[in-house]
């Protein structure tokens, strides 16, 4: 499979790169918890806290800003707090960036790569593309952009989803979207086919560009197969000051959730300020891809030594 991936990118003239696993900065995204470790020695005689990357996104964007052109990387990434049927705290990501491609063009490339990888193992029906709104309308019968917390709560009740009691009393729709997405919609996505979900609410833009409009939409997409999320992609945000604002908002969210603060990646912000070429990027969970290719139900079946045996 790895050979197939490397051949796929070699044919398209995409360069394989390596970036550091350890960094003095970390992602401030409150949904991603970085492992920390400590380095002591030349350069930092008093010791320095280092973070294991949760994805190679930041240094890869620095390469793009430095003029690398299209690049890809296959590497281990690390996320604290995540273990379960489709999660392991260390896992393999395939991440790639294509200069000059928008989200729709990159989705087409993701589709051809995944089809090629699964070709001998799984029979796939024609792929489908659903906007975030269409998916919610189809499976939850509501418009995720205009629905209120009460609308979401009602839809959850109608489908016998027992939300955490604390959620019933506050009105943050973002968490309600996540609840219905994970409990109701995701399990129904990509049944025997590749389903792309795209045009996310702007509040879930993460590192994607936001297209102005009513409502404004994030140029972000995710790929599902048999209810499993396989990839997440963005038409990459290139505006350094917008990126800094989002980082600061995330740092603020971390402090209200009593999560540890982290140093921002000033190198990334400087690279964006110097100019990131127009590009789209996507990260694909390699272990999940092998799980689906093998017809397995959990990552534990395809990872030699998952967390409980590591």
């Amino acid at each position, binding site marked *: 499979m790895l050979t197939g991936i490397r051949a796929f990118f070699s044919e398209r003239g995409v360069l394989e790169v390596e970036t550091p696993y350890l960094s003095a900065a970390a992602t401030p995204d409150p949904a991603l918890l970085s492992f920390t470790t400590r380095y002591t020695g030349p350069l930092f005689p008093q010791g320095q806290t280092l973070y294991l990357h949760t994805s190679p996104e930041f240094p890869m964007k620095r390469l793009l800003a430095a003029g690398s052109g299209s690049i890809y990387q296959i590497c281990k990434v690390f996320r604290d707090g995540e273990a*379960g049927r489709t999660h392991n705290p260390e896992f393999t990501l395939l991440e790639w960036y294509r200069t000059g491609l928008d989200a729709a063009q990159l989705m087409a490339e993701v589709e051809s790569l995944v089809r090629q990888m699964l070709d001998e193992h799984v029979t796939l029906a024609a792929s489908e593309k659903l906007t975030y709104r269409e998916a919610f309308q189809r499976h939850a019968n509501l418009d995720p952009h205009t629905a209120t917390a009460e609308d979401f709560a009602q839809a959850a009740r109608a489908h016998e989803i027992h939300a955490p009691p604390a959620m019933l009393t506050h009105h943050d729709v973002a968490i309600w979207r996540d609840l219905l997405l*994970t409990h109701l919609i995701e399990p129904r996505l990509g049944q025997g086919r590749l389903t792309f979900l795209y045009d996310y609410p702007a509040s879930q833009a993460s590192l994607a560009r936001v297209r102005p409009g009513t409502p404004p939409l994030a140029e972000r997409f995710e790929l599902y197969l048999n209810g499993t999320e396989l990839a997440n992609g963005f038409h990459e945000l290139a505006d350094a000051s917008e990126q800094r604002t989002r980082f600061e908002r995330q740092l603020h969210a971390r402090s209200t959730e009593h999560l540890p603060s982290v140093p921002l990646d000033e190198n990334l912000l400087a690279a964006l300020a110097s100019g990131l070429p127009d590009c789209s990027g996507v990260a694909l969970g390699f272990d999940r891809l092998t799980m689906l290719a093998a017809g397995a139900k959990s990552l534990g079946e395809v990872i030699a030594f998952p967390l409980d045996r590591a």
Partner: protein
Amino acid sequence: MATYSTNDFKAGLKVMIDNSPGAVVENEFVKPGKGQAFNRVKIRNLKTGRIIERTFKSGDTLEAADVVDVEMQFLYNDGEFFHFMNPVTYEQFGADKTAVGDTAKWLKEQDVCIITLWNGIPLSVEPPHTVILKIVETDPGLKGDTSGGGGKPATLETGAVVRVPLFIQNGELIKCNTRTGEYISRA
């Protein structure tokens, strides 16, 4: 009171849910790529036996339920309560009909059962895997019959009815599987 977080949840963990004691059956971690992590948890209500599904935000907590399984000897049934004794402490417990349920038909004095206690009160009773009981009523046996063939119903001293081979006679002791309710052998 002790509490458990979703990170502690695993099959068998005893927690309080809807003011009743429950046992975790399954705990699935779900998380969108960039968003809130949840735990979808299946919990068996130990009073009703029903399985309910609940969702928690990862990191949420539930109160621990003081539930323990203890091996105890069955003493006697006084018509209202089934009395059991802890053979180590000699402490005695009375289990009502709800707690004993269907198990009653297998209970013979001095057999060792597993009693599930919640706050010191019997919640359920699990009979021994196999029991040896006397047949009190069955049709007369047929000479020359082997264990093959249809069989016939036999009522046991504790009230249970099991199918036995035709050669088994009234008054004999037989070994039964309490999980399947089936005859195993002569004892």
